[in-house]
């Protein structure tokens, strides 16, 4: 046992030990430490009594407050829904035109639509709904399936080429890959389709080529895209005469569309997003288009 010394600075005694020069003072534990220790234990014990806390073999103590996170969150969700019902009820009941005419209600639609669209739709259609290669722009006022609120609502509900029984079905055949048209026919029709949206052309295609292409188009494509190439919202065939392109309007992209075919897939949202929210999304998307230049 070492000799107990007194630390000149603090006045406390040491324990009398030394380890390679390190000594320890035998300072008493300050009362504050005990106080905090006891307080934290008292707090914990209280909490254990109030809350579910200790396991007992095949069950556990439920706590006096009977708290249950799952019931809590259910109650929160319920309360939130009721709070919103002031305006969501009107969304449910009123028709699209009436809602669109009501600025107050449209404010709720815009506020709600932002995150709803951002979390579910933006991955494909972009944060600003301007689309991208393979995913349609939703604010350009050109619609594959029609731009009425009912048509848009239906697209969102059932999707396109989705697994939903009511899904819209669209199929651009693979004319080249499946051997329905030969190479010349395809290059001709590609040149022709390209010229539809580029009146006057880029000067590369010959008149013969365009004429041949027009024939191929009338024979094969007009069924869906219409004799004038303006498309059809019944089968989701795009208008080929405008400058809106789902997959790109340069000749190479058009060639790919014709050769490989296309089959866009828009998921169904019926089981994932409530009817109210789908209605809000419809209104939101149409509103974005309306406010875009």
């Amino acid at each position, binding site marked *: *046992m070492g000799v107990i010394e007194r*630390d000149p*600075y*603090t006045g*406390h005694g*040491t*324990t009398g*030990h*030394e*380890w*390679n*020069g*390190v*000594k*320890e*003072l*035998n*300072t*008493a*534990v300050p009362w504050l*430490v005990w106080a*905090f*220790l006891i307080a*934290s*234990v008292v*707090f*914990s014990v209280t*909490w*254990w009594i109030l*809350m*579910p*806390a*200790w*396991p007992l073999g095949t069950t*556990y*103590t439920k*706590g006096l407050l009977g*708290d*249950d*996170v799952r019931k809590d969150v259910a109650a929160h969700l319920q309360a*939130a829904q009721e*709070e*919103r019902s002031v*305006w969501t009820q009107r969304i449910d009941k009123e028709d699209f035109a009436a809602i669109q005419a009501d600025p107050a209600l449209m*404010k*709720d639609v815009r*506020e*709600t639509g*932002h*995150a*709803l*669209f*951002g*979390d579910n739709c*933006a991955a494909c259609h972009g*944060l600003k709904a301007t689309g991208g290669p393979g995913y349609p722009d939703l604010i350009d006022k050109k619609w594959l399936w029609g731009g009425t609120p009912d048509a848009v609502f239906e697209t969102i509900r059932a999707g396109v080429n989705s697994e939903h029984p009511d899904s819209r079905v669209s199929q651009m055949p693979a004319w080249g890959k499946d051997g329905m048209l030969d190479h010349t026919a395809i290059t001709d029709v590609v040149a022709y389709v390209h010229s539809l949206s580029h009146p006057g052309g880029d000067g590369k295609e010959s008149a013969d080529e365009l004429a041949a292409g027009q024939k191929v188009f009338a024979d094969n494509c007009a069924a869906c895209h219409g004799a004038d190439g303006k498309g059809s919202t019944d089968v989701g065939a795009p208008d080929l005469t405008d400058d809106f392109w789902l997959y790109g309007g340069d000749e190479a992209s058009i060639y790919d569309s014709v050769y490989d075919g296309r089959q866009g897939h828009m998921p169904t949202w019926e089981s994932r997003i409530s009817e109210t929210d789908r209605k809000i999304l419809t209104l939101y998307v149409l509103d974005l288009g309306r406010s875009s230049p």
Partner: protein
Amino acid sequence: MISTMTITERQIALLISVLVALCGIVLAAAGRHDPIGTHGLLILLAGLAGTFFILRGYYDPEPAPERLTSYFDDPIKVGIVISMIWALVAMSVGDWVAWQLAYPDLRFDGAWSSFGRLRPIHTTGIIFGFGGNALIATSFHIMQRTSRARMPDQLSPWFVLAGYNLFCVLAVTGYLIGITQSKEYAEPEWYADIWLVIVWVTYFVLYLRTLARRKEPHIYVSNWYFLAFILVVAMLHIVNNLALPISLGSSKSYSLFSGVQDAMVQWWYGHNAVAFFLTAGFLGMLYYYLPKRAARPIYSYRMSIIGFWGITFFYIWVGSHHLHYTALPQWVQTLGVTFSMMLLIPSWIAAANALLTLNGAWHKVRDDATLRFMTVAAVFYGLATFEGSFLAIRPVNSLSHYTDWTVAHVHAGTLGWNSMIVFGAFYYLVPQLWKRPRMYSPALVEVHFWLAIAGTFVYVFAMWNSGITQGLMWRTYNDSGTLAYSFVDSLIAMHPYYIARAFGGLLFLIGTAVGAYNIWMTMRTVPTVIGTQADRPVMPEPSRPILQAGE
């Protein structure tokens, strides 16, 4: 290295190396169609390197018997160097992934350079590579000094150090080639896990044997912490890594646990990896180097006792605070919160005991950057534990969990506390072990200190901001009572913070590089006979005089 071992030890070392090489061959052959084959080759290489080293020095003269009158410091020196190398590598990777979160295409074409594979390299490299080697080196130093006894043999320290680093290398190279168990901080696969158990048992036995030779009647606080670190990490490691490999020729294994039980086991492990690896062991360092450098007695022996047992007992309960509001039953969450609250008290006792030790030495803190590193470490330890207990409160955690706030907390702890105490300890140790009057450049120690402090602050403030912003954006409701922001909105808001964090990390990394350079240059200057601070000499073994007649 080899010259420090006796002939018998060399023979055993040779045997071990050959066995390791053989294991490597077996794995390489059994797993030739599997990533484990690559690791087999790596293990073979390690075994061969060991064999080569030993054979090369095999006929060197045996160490003189006088060695028994001095401490065995060579493994400590090597441990410090390895630790600094890991620090540089893992912090560089950390900063790289930090930049990737701001500019995701800052990578190479290969799969290996994507965030998901590099991140565990950073965490493993820094915690186990940098932290682990620092722990091994300082524990070797402290256990000998506070026992006034030399380590019992020359082989097991080398085995622990080399074996442990083999584990670390297997871990990080594994992630690069796609080997991982996905369990955070326990990612290495089954064969690496088994190897670590072997190394760890050796480490524990070595520790006990050294303590058994001690000349001081009482075991010093630092050693309590190191013992807790070694023992509890062993327990955690073994249980959390229980897994069934699909075959002995495959790196892939499936955890014995699944779902909610697995989550609880994982965070029982994960939290206590923090507690017993990043806290208990490092408190061992703090409790020796701080009083030593300040030349002050520990403030209160009694507070040491309460702090130690409080930490050891309470910590184990709190892992469930990583699983608040999840599918983990609520009763476990309640235990997690309450024990996290109680845990704050012993944690602060430990921090306060260190800071009160500085009473009467504050002028030294002002003048001496090395002591300042240690002091700042104790302060950040207090901060991180306070923040931790705060984050463990369920409503707070509902905001902070899943966000960068956790990352801020982590780095307040790891940069401010773990790294600072290691640097303080190394600046104290290096001149002594290499027998130099002081570090090569005290000015550079200052530079390192300020870079580290600045880096830590920038990092932590950036992540506090981003974490809280993120957490708030995810739960902000607009007037209509619906969510105001989409996930991607919050992602866009993070960008400036991610740049700031990467910049802060860069400052910290530069500081580390300055430190490494300073240590390197110190090693290269001409040794003087006396180090800065003479240790008490080792006391001879009473039963076995060092120099026996006729020897």
